[in-house]
């Protein structure tokens, strides 16, 4: 509670703090989603065909994880700064469900199929498409949280 108030105070009363938290939040998800999308584009055979999806995943997974940490920490700070508004927001819980789904999917199904030796092409494409849709739905959820209150 004390921590919540301290974070809320800083973000609401310092001119640049909220803007900075938002920049980190949006920049973080751009890197997180962008790095996952590189694997997805490879799985969809749309680019980077000179390397396997498994190898692209190895290159990008640390970026995805670090970026997601930034997104979550800045997101929690943004939430706490206006917790009362988010608690009654109709879209916000949907965004959280979409985020949870995208997160779990990314580190289970997506990872499993991306690292398979010879996955059926249809399976790869399906898994990559679902991945892109899940992550983009989180972006839509974030924007709509701000617009439909």
């Amino acid at each position, binding site marked *: 509670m004390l921590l919540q108030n301290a974070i809320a105070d800083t973000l609401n009363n310092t001119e640049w703090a909220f803007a900075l938290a938002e920049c980190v939040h*949006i920049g973080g998800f751009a890197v997180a989603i962008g790095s996952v999308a590189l694997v997805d584009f490879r799985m969809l055979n749309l680019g980077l065909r000179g390397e396997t999806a498994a190898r692209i995943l190895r290159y990008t997974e640390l970026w995805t994880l670090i970026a997601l940490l930034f997104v979550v920490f800045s997101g929690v700070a943004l939430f706490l700064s206006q917790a009362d508004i988010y608690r009654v927001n109709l879209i916000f819980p949907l965004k959280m469900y979409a985020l949870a789904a995208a997160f779990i999917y990314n580190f289970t199904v997506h990872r499993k199929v991306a690292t398979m030796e010879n996955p059926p092409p249809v399976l790869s494409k399906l898994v990559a498409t679902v991945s892109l849709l899940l992550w983009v739905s989180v972006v839509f959820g974030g924007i709509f949280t701000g617009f439909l209150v």
Partner: protein
Amino acid sequence: MPTAHSIQSIGFLTAFSESVLAYPIVLSIHLACIALFGGMILATDLRLLGLTFNSLTITEMVTSLRPWKRVGGTIMIAMGLLLAASEAEKYAPNPFFWTKMIILGLIGVHALIFRPIVYSKTEELDQSPVIPTKAKVAAILSLGLWTTMFVMGRLIAYWD
């Protein structure tokens, strides 16, 4: 600002900015493009710097992502212009918006300078034992320009 007023009074732009759904949908598409295609720009720049994706050739990195960057960039700019035009009176006096537009122009200049010597010469870069300085300069400038572009975009909302 009579010009700004007449821009945002264009029928479909007024309808757009007043719509409950259209504005956030277009903004979401704008941001999704930043994530998807910004990631590709970032990956290409890091490859040019030799920091990652080193088992892929620079040629593959640049050419296989190029069509998607073009598609993504076009959608991103079109959506951005739609957002700005629909609230032209709010954007016209906003210094962050104009800084963003100047950066967009500089990104065009960057392309004009570096396309002939870096992005169209990727095979030459791949044959070089070390990545030539011009490629690294292009990558660092690209990272700087796009990051500034991104931050200015966010700051537009904070000016009043």
